[in-house]
């Protein structure tokens, strides 16, 4: 589904990603871990198409297409979904209006009929249950004044609405209390299918108990320096990153 080959990216001339290789197949869950500032969010942003990041080398193929060639909106329409580490507050744009515009544009791209108001609302109700999000939140401006946890929950709600094939969750667990974490993870798990894949960026093993990864990768200084199974996450939880940093830095 997704093939990343030797991906280099820079921001304002400073290299951040320095040769990422990753293969994600349908049905898989990949966890990306790594110390602060190692490039995890940068990778997520580059995949979603944020313009500030300049890809200097490498390629990304998504469902046979050159992903880097597509505008951000077309990536979303193709099925890439990024749950933001820091969702943006947009005053004056109603959550409902926003979602309906988004969903119908995605549907149009996929050759589906737009949803009318009634169908849209019933779909919304159904998906709201999935992440147990409060109706009141959605009657407000998009993310405006939402708590950290509410924003994260709203990201997963949007994901449920848009039904992506590849979801990238950037620290969706940070800021969630235990109950919310369980609810959000359950939501993500229910949305999983043999045809979809998930990349979860996290610092905590805790999330991976709910969303169980097939692979765990460690990103450090813009490269994937270690990959393993879910046991690697346990090891990181116990030992921290120093041993990996030492290994890598010694090899340089």
């Amino acid at each position, binding site marked *: 589904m997704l093939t990343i080959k030797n991906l280099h990216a820079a921001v304002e001339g400073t290299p951040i990603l320095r040769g990422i290789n990753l293969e994600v197949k349908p049905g898989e869950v990949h966890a990306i871990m790594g110390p602060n500032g190692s490039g995890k969010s940068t990778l997520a942003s580059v995949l979603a198409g944020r313009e500030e990041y300049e890809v200097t080398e490498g390629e990304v193929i998504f469902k046979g297409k050159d992903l880097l060639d597509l505008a951000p*909106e077309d990536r979303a329409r193709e099925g890439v979904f990024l749950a933001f580490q820091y969702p943006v507050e947009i005053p004056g744009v109603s959550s409902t*209006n926003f979602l309906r515009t988004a969903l119908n544009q995605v549907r149009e791209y996929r050759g589906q009929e737009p949803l009318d108001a009634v169908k849209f609302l019933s779909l919304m109700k159904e998906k709201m249950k999935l992440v147990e999000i409060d109706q009141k939140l959605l009657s407000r401006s998009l993310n405006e004044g939402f708590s950290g946890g509410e924003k994260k929950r709203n990201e997963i709600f949007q994901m449920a609405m848009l039904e992506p094939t590849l979801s990238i969750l950037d620290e969706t667990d940070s800021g969630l209390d235990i109950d919310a974490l369980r609810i959000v993870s359950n939501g993500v798990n229910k949305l999983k299918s043999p045809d979809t894949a998930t990349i979860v960026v996290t610092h905590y093993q805790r999330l991976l108990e709910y969303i169980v990864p097939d692979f765990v990768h460690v990103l450090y200084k813009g490269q994937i320096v270690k990959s393993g199974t879910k046991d690697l996450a346990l090891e990181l939880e116990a030992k921290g990153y120093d041993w990996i940093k030492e290994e890598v830095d010694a090899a340089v």
Partner: protein
Amino acid sequence: MSTLVKEDLFENLLESAPANFTEARQTAKDLYLESGLPAPKEEEYKFTGITKKLEKSLSNFNQAKQLSVEETLIKETVFQGFEGDVLVFSNGKFLQEVSSSIEGLEVSDILSSSAEIGSIAKAEKDAFAALNQASFSGGISIKVPKKTKVEKPILLLSFNGVNDGQVITPRFWIEVGDFSEVTFLDQSISMGEEAYFVNKVVEIKGGLNSHINYYRLQNESNQAIEVSNIETDIQSDARFTSVNISLSGDMVRNNLSLNLLGSNSEGNMYGIYLLNGKTHVDNHTNVDHTIPHAESNEMYKGIFDAQSRGVFNGKIFVRQDAQKTNAFQQNNNVLLSDDAIVNTKPQLEIWADDVKCSHGCTVGQLDEEALFYLQARGIGKVQAKGLLLYAFAGEVMEKIEEESFKNHVVGLIQDRLGSKF
């Protein structure tokens, strides 16, 4: 300065003024001849070089003669969904034959009215107000008696175009009695694409506990040059709300002044600039708090594309006696192009000590983070921009209480933003 315009205007306009209100005209003429039009460096017109613009764009400084306006044209022009009365003007002249007659109101051509010309919009305050007072050639006087709720909005529909002259000088006198309510919609239509100059004055007198809405849509041709002086006096417990929507024109200067003369009165001034091309719009507003316990609210939002230019100047005076005043002012602007310019300046003069006043102005670009967020959800760039800009401007639209007008304006704005939802 600018002798050309001064002399031409003098010859053609002042000398040919209708023979009524002779005293008011004479006073204004003397004032005008002393001051002339604003010189390039004049503080009040610093960013809006209107005199130069007139010299460059006009060649015939005569009053434009009346154009024929057929009923079919009026029907076609009145916006969809409008239900109310229409008062029609052709190059400033009130066309009674094709206008609604509104029961219970005293409506007459300004030239044959008992309007107190210049008692509210004073000629000494502005050269254009003086020029208008000396030379106005048409307009209307509308008097709403006491305790009258005018149920339907009144559309003041002006057709403007060149006809044996390029200057149009209308004057409106509006008097709203105690405890009365009325909503005016002011809209002008360009007939043809030639340059003309509208120099308009509107004087509004609001009685005790009166409620007056004055909504204005400025979407004339991109050759239209306009200066307007709209000034309102309101008494105790009265409320006046102005909403001014500017969408096009060549150079437009709006002087909007509000005098709060009675306690517990409320004045609101809202506006939108949504400009492209080379359109230049300047909103100069002035609120005068002279008595205690009054409130004013002001919010102007600007979106500037291409080489358009915006000017905002908001004066708030709080006189020594005006304790317990609440005065709020806000001007926010978004520049969509590197060539667009906005100058914004709040000017607060507060002599009372027990008041609540706040003001803020911002000039910024479209929020790129927000744009990316919307795109990342599958919304196309143009639509995403439209959503964000509409959200920015929408707050002003919410102030329009007349539903059909609001829908019309929202439609125009969404069309312009390239995003209908």
